[in-house]
């Protein structure tokens, strides 16, 4: 209250200041950190309970299996984070993954000598192309991404089916070097997981520390304001869909490498899990907040739940119900936290001088 003389209206300004904030910088970031921490705790608790029931759950092989199992979902969830943060949603990722996976297989079938990095690049490019179709339609039609990607969910899958025509591609059709990618480990950590970690780190850091990344949050937080502050909203949203498509493409190639057996149904219904992972990971479904790290943790948590249920020998039919309940719990919890935060902020605003 530097300007106070005798209770002049100056304390109007003072009233809404809050001196204690200065000592605790990064209020906004702290909210996120809390979310990620609680996810880690949940994950830890889950692993602990499962391990108590069956100590092999934490054996080297099992951990490796877990890491391998979550890699693809993590990559997709990170891509989805990019999209959701801008207040959009991409429901077509499962279909893109399927299409790219099958395409990769056919590619090796057609050109057996192809080095796998080329296949990887081509897969990512095809995914990006699908993403561009999404992004383009959304930009042209100015309709919600939900509807467009619901449509392309059908369309991409249909193309995939049409092309595959009931064929199946087997591990034997693909080069060993490529298949090794799916199962190889470095110091006991699967390569697939390392790739996922790199993706998470790059996207997560970009979202946090680069102008382009921050602009995505701005778009999701208030699209109209974003437009007025000179952010090329259309172009950014388009780019986000291309990125999501490309990551789905990457996931598709990795899927091919990991599973070896491919038919056109690969990745059917995956979009639900991906959205669930992001939402559980604290990415607000209406945009503007959440982090790639959180989404990745959400994906790990979902995969771990799947494995835990199997290890705990719980009726597998419960798994989908658990996923649904988790989504509801996550958004419910978010809402509760948001309300409490809002109450706290209002409390500060209203606190007398």
């Amino acid at each position, binding site marked *: 209250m530097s300007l106070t003389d005798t209770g002049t209206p100056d304390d109007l300004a003072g009233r809404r200041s809050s001196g204690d904030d200065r000592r605790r910088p990064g209020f906004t970031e702290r909210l996120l950190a809390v979310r990620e921490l609680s996810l880690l705790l949940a994950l830890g608790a889950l692993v602990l309970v499962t391990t108590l029931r069956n100590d092999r759950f934490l054996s080297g092989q099992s951990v490796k299996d877990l890491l391998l199992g979550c890699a693809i979902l993590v990559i997709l969830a990170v891509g989805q984070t990019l999209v959701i943060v801008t207040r959009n949603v991409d429901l077509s990722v499962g279909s893109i993954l399927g299409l790219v996976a099958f395409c990769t297989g056919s590619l090796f079938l057609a050109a057996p000598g192809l080095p796998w990095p080329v296949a990887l690049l081509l897969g990512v490019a095809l995914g990006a192309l699908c993403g561009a179709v999404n992004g383009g339609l959304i930009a042209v039609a100015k309709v919600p991404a939900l509807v*467009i990607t619901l449509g392309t969910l059908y369309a991409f899958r*249909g193309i995939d089916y049409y092309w595959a025509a009931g064929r199946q591609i087997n591990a034997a059709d693909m080069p060993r070097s490529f298949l090794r990618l799916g199962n190889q480990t470095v110091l006991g950590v699967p390569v697939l997981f390392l790739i996922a970690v790199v993706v998470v780190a790059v996207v997560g850091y970009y979202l946090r520390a680069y102008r382009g990344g921050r602009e995505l949050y701005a778009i999701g937080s208030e699209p109209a304001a974003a437009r007025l502050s000179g952010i090329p909203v259309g172009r950014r949203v388009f780019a986000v869909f291309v990125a999501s498509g490309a990551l789905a493409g990457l996931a598709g190639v990795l899927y091919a490498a990991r599973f070896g057996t491919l038919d056109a149904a690969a990745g059917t219904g995956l979009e639900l899990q991906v959205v669930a992972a992001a939402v559980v990971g604290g990415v607000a479904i209406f945009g503007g907040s959440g982090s790639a790290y959180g989404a990745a943790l959400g994906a790990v948590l979902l995969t771990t739940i799947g494995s835990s249920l199997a290890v705990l020998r719980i009726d597998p039919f419960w798994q989908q*119900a658990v996923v649904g*309940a988790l989504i*509801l719990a996550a958004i419910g919890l978010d*809402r509760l936290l948001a309300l409490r935060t809002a109450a706290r902020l209002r409390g500060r605003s209203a606190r007398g001088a």
Partner: protein
Amino acid sequence: MAHDSLYAAPPSAGTDTEQTAGRLTGLRAAFGSWDAAVVAALVLAVLVAGVSVQNFATGRNVQFLLLDLVPLALLALPMTLIVVTGEIDLSVASTVGLCSTLMGQLWLSSGLSLELICVLVVLLGGVLGAVNGLFVTGFGLPSLAVTIGTLALYRGLSFVVLGDQAVADFPASWTAAAVRNIPGTPIPAAVLPVLLLALVFGVVLHATTTGRALYAMGNNDQAATFAGVSVARTKFWLFVASGAVCGLVGVFWTLRYASARGDNATGLELTVVTAVLLGGVSIFGGRGALLGVVAGVLLLGVLRNALQLADVDANALTIVTGALLIASVVLPNAVADLRARLHRRRQRANPVAP
């Protein structure tokens, strides 16, 4: 921001009234004729299919076609109202599935009469819808996220209820009644309740105070609140109604296929949303008419049936469904855009307008 803006973020949210207004008149022009366009497309599709597709224009085929459309048409009715209020219910197909398995389980183990079971299932559907409604209105969560959650939850529970088992020993008199025709016509008797419900929902939407309130809250829920509309309650009951209709569809589905299974109606929610959007209901809320939706449902059914009869690959059908969905949202906007552009060009060519 009060709106769950994920899918309800109109192109130019609020900041520029004039532009929005301009765009809206364009949209309205496009939408006003959208109903008519869908009906015209339907008539055209029927004519073309009748002439060029063998076996299309037969009584038996009409029966098959309509029978296949009953669940879709029923689910599209409450969905229309929900989308008009700016919400969405993606859990409908899972609710149908859960209702179906509950019906099977009750029949299998409760010893209750089938009549009672049917009533119970419809009520249970209402309860499942109420859970959606509670999350959406009570906790203020976006319906998209909530119903994606219950989509997974209800489907999971329906597998929990019956596992992968099917309950199939429903009395033949009942299962036959589900597919019986109105005597003397090729029209299934199940169409009658659909028509009745369509009438009820149509009147509610277009000729009652509730309907007015639905449009108002779909456009601006704050203004609706200030005008004394109980937005939350109305939406809550819409979800309940949606759930109850799902229960009804669950009963019909179970009897028609004489089989209560956990995977009944899987994926149907996408078709329902497609039909509703194809019928000209705006996904932003606040716009749309029930007639268009009914025409949309029929158009979808006729196209699928005709293409199937013409031996078009199932995979091509998948693509057609996706393409229709995209076209139904892209076209009106593209038309509006085009008109606006033409208008501007005329303006520019003639700058000294009045």
